[in-house]
């Protein structure tokens, strides 16, 4: 059999061939499988696609789609003039950088002043870690004035006027100097 034409192949594929024509076609197909496959390829696929899809198809909701596009385009056109009027602070963008620099310089200056003040106070006064008054009713106040540290003890017993401390008189009792530390702690606390 010579090469069958396309309509014969189509008929054979559809099962419409009979008799000798069918036998010849089958014999040719067995001998020329590769050629048959090539003939069946894109043509058959093209037919199937054309059968499955309609020749023309409108996009869904086309009017609605066009209306939305038009609406957005109008919005963009209408809002564009408003964006031209930038906020006030944006108009002064140019001043932000020098203002920030000035702020940093000012903070640096303040920092150096604070450091100097602290250093001055440390140099000029005795530093007190703590003041403890063990006797009941006695309290202390620490004053720093003019570079001088003063502890004011209030609530102390007055020294009797009759006791002449300027002449070396002392009240009665054991001298703490004659005791070791542990003895003193036990005696008074």
């Amino acid at each position, binding site marked *: 059999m010579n090469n069958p034409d396309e309509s014969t192949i189509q008929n054979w594929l559809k099962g419409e061939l009979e008799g000798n024509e069918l036998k010849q076609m089958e014999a040719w197909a067995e001998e020329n499988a590769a050629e048959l496959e090539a003939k069946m390829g894109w043509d058959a696929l093209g037919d199937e696609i054309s059968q499955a899809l309609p020749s023309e198809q409108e996009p869904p909701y086309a009017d609605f789609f066009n209306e939305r596009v038009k609406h957005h385009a109008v919005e963009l056109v209408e809002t564009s003039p408003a964006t031209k009027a930038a906020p006030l602070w944006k108009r002064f963008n140019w001043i932000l950088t020098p203002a920030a620099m000035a702020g940093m310089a000012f903070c640096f200056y303040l920092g150096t002043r604070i450091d100097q003040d602290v250093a001055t106070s440390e*140099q*000029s*006064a*005795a*530093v*007190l*870690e*703590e*003041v*403890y*008054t*063990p*006797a009941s009713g*006695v309290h*202390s106040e620490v*004053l720093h*004035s*003019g*570079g*001088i*540290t*003063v*502890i*004011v*003890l209030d609530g*102390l*017993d*007055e*020294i009797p*006027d009759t*006791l*002449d*401390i*300027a*002449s*070396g*008189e*002392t*009240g009665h*009792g*054991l*001298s*703490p*100097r004659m005791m070791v*530390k542990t003895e*003193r702690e036990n005696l*008074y*606390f």
Partner: protein
Amino acid sequence: MIIRLFCVLTLLFSCIVSAADLGKEVIGRMQVQVYFATNGEASVAGQALKKPDPEIEKKLKNLRETSYKHYRVLGMDRQPVFRSYENWLTPLKPSEELLLSFEPRGNAQSGKMMLDLELWQSRKKIMKAGPTLEKGKPLYIFGPKWRGGRLLLAIELVELLQ
């Protein structure tokens, strides 16, 4: 002969022991001055008492909220600061009505010395503090009242040997 040898050995031993005791090393000197401060008649403290130096009196009068019109020097004492031993100041010697005990807390750093400082009145402890003193910068304490005035102590590190 035996007695002489014993004395020499004892002396030698004591020298070795004292040399080994680094805690007794003198690392500075402390001084306290006691002033009688009053707005009344200063002579009630004693006729023979002297006024402080004009410069010191001016400084004392400038102490805010605690200044008095008149000041008299009641007494003064100066004692060595041992490296790790307690020592005492007796500014009204021979009276022990006011006493100060002090002991350094560690080594002096940057010309400053931290101390344990205790003030005693009538042989009772009335205050304990931990000041850091710098040479020539006294710490002032307003203490007990007496004869219409008040006793003011100026405690100062007058020498630092490190």
